[in-house]
Every structure is written in C-alpha cells, then in structure tokens.
C-alpha cells in the first residue's frame, strides 16, 4: 500500500487556516496533502489536456500562416513550428505562474506532451498561405488565377 507522508511536511498554503481558529494539526495537513497527491480526477485531467491541445492547434495554425507568408523552406518551417511551440509553452507558464501542480501534476508534462499534436494543421496552413501569397498573389480569394 502507498506510504503516507511524515507529519513534518507542510505544503498546504495559509488559506486553509480559517481566522478565529487555531492552525490545523499536523496530521490533518499531512492527510490533506496525501489526498491531494493521490486522488486525482480523470475528468479534470482530460478537460485540461483537451484545452491545451486546442490552444496548441490554434498556435500551430498561426505558425503555419507565418511560415507560409515568410516563404520558409522545409527545415526553416519546422524550426518556426517548434519556435511557436516553445513560445506558446512560455505563455502558458506565465499564465500558470509557473505552478502546474494543481492543473497538470508536473511542469515537465506540459513541455513533453503534444509536441506534434498540431503539426498537420501547421502543414495545411503553411502550404495554403504560401500558395495564396507567393503564387496566386492573394487573388485566389476572388477565384482569378494570375499567370
């Protein structure tokens, strides 16, 4: 069976201490920390991962638009995709205040999961906007092909 933590570790923030009462006993705090670590909600995890995937896909779309307009080659385009992936991760870190524990469990999960989840969307929009801007010069929108 999983072992319970020692009573010496306090990880629960001061908000759990209600005013007018004494501080929670060490055993209760340890019990709460143990429960927070061990009992996770699958629905919430799935919601968070789905949300993250949606954000990453949209970021990949923006990256594809940028790569297409910049007329990037093959290798440069993939570099641009990974650059936008890193940028989106950084923005996520700033929004989470660098504390992924209540939302994803571990920070490393955010960096390691879904590196190529939006790659197909990136390819689609890369090719689309490259043709739109550099080959059809934007007139494709009006169904006219310039030769």
């Amino acid at each position, binding site marked *: 069976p999983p072992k319970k933590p020692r009573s010496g570790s306090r990880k629960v923030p001061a908000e759990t201490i209600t005013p007018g009462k004494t501080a929670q006993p060490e055993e209760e705090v340890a019990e709460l920390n143990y429960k927070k670590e061990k009992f996770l909600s699958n629905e919430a995890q799935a919601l968070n991962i789905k*949300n993250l995937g949606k954000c990453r896909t949209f970021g990949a779309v923006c990256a594809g*638009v940028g790569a297409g*307009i910049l007329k990037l080659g093959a290798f440069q385009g993939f570099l641009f995709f990974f650059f936008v992936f890193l940028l*989106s991760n950084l*923005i996520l870190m700033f929004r989470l205040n660098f504390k992924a524990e*209540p*939302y994803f469990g571990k920070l490393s999960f955010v960096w390691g999961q879904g590196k190529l989840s939006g790659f197909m969307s990136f390819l689609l929009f890369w090719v689309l906007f490259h043709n739109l*801007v550099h080959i059809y010069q*934007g007139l494709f929108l009006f169904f006219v092909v310039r030769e």
Partner: protein
Amino acid sequence: VFLMGASGKLLLGAGFLVMAHAALSVVQQRHYVRLMEQEFLRPSTDIVVELFLGAAVCVWGVFVSASPLVSIHAVDKLACRTWESLTTRAEFRSFNHRGRALGPNQGGADPARRHHVPEVLSPLEMVD
C-alpha cells in the same frame, strides 16, 4: 458577457489584422520586385518582425480567450458535496404525471374553470 471575454478576442483580432497586413505587404513587395525586374528571395526585415509579433499576439490571445483550466485534485470537488447529494437520484424523480390533469377542474368540460398550471421544472434544475 461578450465584453467580459473581449480581451482575448481583441488580441486575436489584432494579431490576425497584423498578419493580414504583413501578407498584403509581401504581395506588394513581390509586385514591386517584379516591376524592378529582380528576383524575390525573401520578405524584408520589417515584414518578418511584423509577422513574428503578429504570431506572438495571436498565440497570447488564444491562451487568454481559452476556457480556464480545472484543478485535477479530486479533493476539491469531493469536499463540496453534501450528504444529501450522495444518496439522491434526481434523474429518477418524476414530477410530470397524470395527476396534473386530475387536479382542480382540469378534466372538466368548461375551459373557463380550468386554472393555470404552473410550469414544472426539470429535476436537474431543482437540485443544488
């Protein structure tokens, strides 16, 4: 409600406009280079910077306008449940039955004597 989530959508719109402007600039630059009978290799530096900024603003707007993340600790949700909610099956409670028609004068012939029946809420709306 539209204005409350407007900051993310404004960022997205602004980023999209910046990228559209960069695309039009590239098209104009291509046209100019063709008129000068030169070869178009890559867009100029200012367009590149504009695109990077536009992409960054778009990505930022996506994370601002995305739905909020949910805490995965089950303790937070379980601690809020009341004792009554553990043993109830609200979906099985029936409030729409034929007794409604058998109430005061509902089955009568005279429509003027039939009283207005209040709207019945669904069981899911009644549970806290």
